[in-house]
């Protein structure tokens, strides 16, 4: 039952099962989940907060992405666009909404997630540590080496942490990474090659199945003294005889059969 017909254009080799190919695509997806190197930081000029988003009791904060509130990019369709080698000024502003209540925030984080894993995480300390009723964090963020590997829309999470490490505020937004120099990144190129190869395999599936099934008409059992087969039989795997020709003399008719 197991034939020797392999992938299209590779007669004589066994066609691998679907698991290695699915595994290859899954490995590509997992490759994207490898944490990236942290990106460099630099201080940015201060900017007063002009809007607030209440997400925690007694604390409100707002984050600006190049001067634009990240709450405007809360869906994939309204994602911020960032190109290659682009530096983004990310500014966190927070304040206490309760009179006399202070907070000790010592960490602001910006994390890019993909498949639920942190693809890139960046942390910055506050300008001044201690208990305050308001404060700010400044971060210079760029994509880093990821831009050469993958592109597309990604979820970023801006988070503020207290001195005890508790998450006191967070907000999600989306960013669309544009590949550098209008050239596709590595992963999309690999995926396009895989899709093209599989489409070619589908187009050749009929012939592969026919070849693996073997000859349509089994040769007649040669009795001793029987006449040799007439010359001119088509070679194995060659072109079919012209239509209209007489079928080979056989006791069993050729079976067409479904693939």
């Amino acid at each position, binding site marked *: 039952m197991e034939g020797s017909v392999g992938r299209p254009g590779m007669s004589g080799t066994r066609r691998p099962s*679907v698991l290695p190919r699915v595994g290859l695509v899954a490995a590509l997806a997992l490759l994207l989940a490898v944490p990236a190197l942290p990106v460099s930081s630099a201080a940015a000029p201060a900017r007063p907060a002009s809007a607030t988003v209440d997400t925690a009791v007694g604390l409100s904060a707002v984050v600006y992405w190049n001067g634009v509130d990240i709450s405007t990019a809360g869906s994939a369709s309204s994602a911020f666009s960032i190109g290659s080698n682009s530096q983004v000024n990310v500014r966190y502003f927070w304040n206490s909404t309760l009179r006399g209540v202070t907070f000790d925030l010592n960490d602001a984080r910006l994390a890019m997630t993909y498949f639920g894993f942190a693809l890139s995480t960046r942390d910055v300390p506050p300008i001044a540590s201690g208990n305050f009723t308001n404060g700010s964090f400044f971060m210079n963020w760029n994509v880093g080496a990821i831009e050469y590997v993958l592109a597309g829309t990604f979820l970023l999470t801006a988070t503020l942490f207290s001195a005890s490490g508790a998450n006191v505020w967070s907000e999600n937004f989306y960013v669309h990474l544009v590949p550098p120099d209008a050239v596709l990144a590595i992963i999309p190129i690999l995926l396009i090659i895989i899709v093209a190869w599989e489409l070619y*395999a589908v187009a050749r599936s009929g012939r592969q*199945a*026919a070849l693996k099934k073997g*000859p*349509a008409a089994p040769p007649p059992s040669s009795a001793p003294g029987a006449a040799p087969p007439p010359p001119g039989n*088509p070679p194995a795997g060659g072109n079919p005889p012209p239509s209209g020709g007489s079928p080979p003399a056989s006791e069993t008719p*050729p079976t067409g059969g479904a*693939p």
Partner: protein
Amino acid sequence: MSAASYGAESGAVIGIAFVLLAQQFGYLALDTLLGAIEYLVIAAIVGGVLFGLLGWALGRRYLRNHPNEQGPAS
């Protein structure tokens, strides 16, 4: 192995790759693990069924056009 099986195998791979490509070109966001797996599984099933049917049809057509096709000597 039938042509439909070949088509289903390739269709499952094409479906998974299609989802990943849709994310790479910005049409889809695969931010959560369960959501991404859900997309991938659905795409693999849909691709497998569609391309299985396509492979079946291609196999029928090939055998109809090449009734005396023989396998390689091995």
